[in-house]
């Protein structure tokens, strides 16, 4: 399950990357809405957001691009928007849900809307076709897990490490225990994200997780896109990476 930020370096490229990832056979694509103050994100994704915002990217344009794509292509995997509540609130929660539905998104991940604050929004979204994907952190205590499971739908986003997004060499050993515990408490698929960049890490998680989210390691390839040649190189590198990760997911 790859993650990319919309509009980096431009929306046309975002559409091309989504098609490329789709043909690599990924299960789901997360589309990040660039935000000026992303406190959960590491330097790679923040830089990607900044590149997109510096070009004057507007929320409306992201919806337009995604709508075109979901209308034209019928074999796309589900697209899930990763978007700060600051943006949703400004657009208006009801309006945002409607626009996301029309664009063809399958769900929303709102990283700064924790379980306690999600009730009103979860109630709104339950009347739509969208899922509200909730996050669980290594620091989440037992009593919070229950609360979160009550408002979660789609899948559970399990944060592998306490910290921000960004590739890491190792995953914490407690992760497997937490995933096994969650497995016993919910039927929702479990996806693991933050810190994952290599097929070997996918190997370790294959038996305990249903999905692996890779973000910074993909976004990094867009850092030096300045012209058509560098863009073609970036697309190729992203495709290779996706192929490797998809193959690792399907190994048994």
């Amino acid at each position, binding site marked *: 399950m790859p993650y990319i930020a919309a509009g980096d370096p431009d929306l046309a490229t975002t559409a091309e990357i989504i098609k490329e990832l789709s043909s690599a056979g990924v299960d789901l694509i997360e589309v990040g809405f660039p*935000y*000026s*103050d*992303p*406190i*959960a994100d*590491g*330097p790679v994704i*923040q830089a990607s957001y*900044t590149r997109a*915002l510096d070009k004057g990217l*507007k*929320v*409306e344009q992201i919806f337009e691009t995604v709508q075109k794509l979901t209308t034209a292509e019928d074999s796309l995997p589900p697209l899930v928007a990763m978007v*700060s*509540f*600051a*943006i*949703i*609130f*400004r*657009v*208006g*929660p*009801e309006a945002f849900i409607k626009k996301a539905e029309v664009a063809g998104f399958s769900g929303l991940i709102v*990283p*700064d*809307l*924790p*379980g*306690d*604050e999600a009730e*009103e*929004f979860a109630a*709104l979204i339950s009347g739509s076709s969208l899922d509200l994907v*909730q*996050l*669980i*952190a*290594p*620091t*989440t*205590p037992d009593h*919070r897990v229950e609360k*979160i499971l009550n408002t979660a739908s789609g899948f559970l986003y399990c*944060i592998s*490490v*306490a*910290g*921000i997004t960004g590739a890491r060499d190792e995953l914490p050993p407690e992760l497997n225990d937490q995933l096994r515990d969650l497995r016993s408490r919910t039927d929702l698929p479990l996806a693991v994200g933050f810190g994952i960049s290599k097929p070997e890490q996918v190997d370790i998680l294959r038996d305990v997780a249903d999905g692996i989210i890779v973000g910074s390691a993909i976004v990094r390839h867009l850092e030096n896109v300045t012209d058509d040649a560098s863009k073609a190189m970036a697309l190729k590198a992203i495709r290779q990476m996706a192929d490797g990760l998809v193959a690792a997911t399907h190994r048994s």
Partner: protein
Amino acid sequence: MSSPFLSSPHTVATSQVPDERGRFGEFGRRFVPETLMHALEDLTAHYANVKQDAEFQMELSDLLREYVGRPNPLYFAERLTEHAGGAKIFLKREDLNHTGAHKINNALGQALLTMRMGKKRVIAETGAGQHGVATATACARFGLPCVVYMGEEDIRRQKLNVFNMKLMGAEVRPVTSGSRTLRDAINEAMRDWMSSVKETHYIIGSVVGPHPFPMMVRDFQSIIGLETRLQALEHTGSLPHEVIACVGGGSNSAGMFYPFVDDKNVVLTGVEPGGKGSAPGEHASTLVHGEKGVLHGSYSYVLQDSSGQTSDVHSISAGLDYPGVGPEHSYWKDTGRVNYVNCSDDEALEAFQLLARTEGILPALESSHAIAHGIKAAGKRSKDENVVICLSGRGDKDVYELARILRKDI
């Protein structure tokens, strides 16, 4: 463009806020990643304990007396009063605190709390550097390792404070992302905290951020308003007619106003940085010009564009250069309890020099905003009325910047 979502009717402001979810009326709450939620719950519980704990409160008040030098005076500014030509002007002298500003009240309270929680490391953000210095000071006093995040642009504007922090053993980490000011320093401190939350406490410097920070910082700063009440009664036999303080994130003003919230006859006025004008990017007047939104973990007034992206802001004062404001201020604005106005860079600069000449006091550029408005407000009142202005910090840190602007060599 306010959404009915999140809203609840505002009636009359009360001091009985926030509720257990951190709501000041509709404002506040916790819009942060799940990774931080347990730490915030934990902090809320620990803070509730120490609030009731006589030993903790005694330790803090001893420190405030012996180490900070409280109570500081409520000083009658006779020549400034003459200049304004109206009500008597009193200055609450937070500038006379150890480290030269009100920030130490909160930093010491939170440093004591850090130790109560058994945490071993402290991080902080700073704009003008006053909160960074206060936190570095508290950490030096208690032997806690301390990292201060500070925007590159602010490091340039506030070299003296950067050097002071280093002298006290703090590590100052320059923040190069975004606007390189206070807002980005908060982002970086939050990111650090996400990865280090088990052993680290984040001493936030203003009444902003997720619950319980806005409440806790207000409480630690309320010593300002509590002393002012008693001193005003001693000096004049009555409560002041008007109390004025500057508002960036809003900590000195929250601490000053809170003890007066239920005294309906006391007029409360917050002064925001008006910068160079009213166009977006020229000011940081969040309450005067902003709209409701979410920033840095709480729901409050913010300066944003129509897509929810945080606007660039400007103020001559690094401590007020912030696109958000504490949620309790938003509550006070919407209930009409506090009146929010702004004053320009130029008016603040003028007030700085005026206070220096009339009273022999160099105010911080932040506090100069309150002085500038206070002179106008006092001028419109009769001579038998009293106005209190919070002189939240001293201006030594600003003289290099002032000389640069006035094109004078030092």
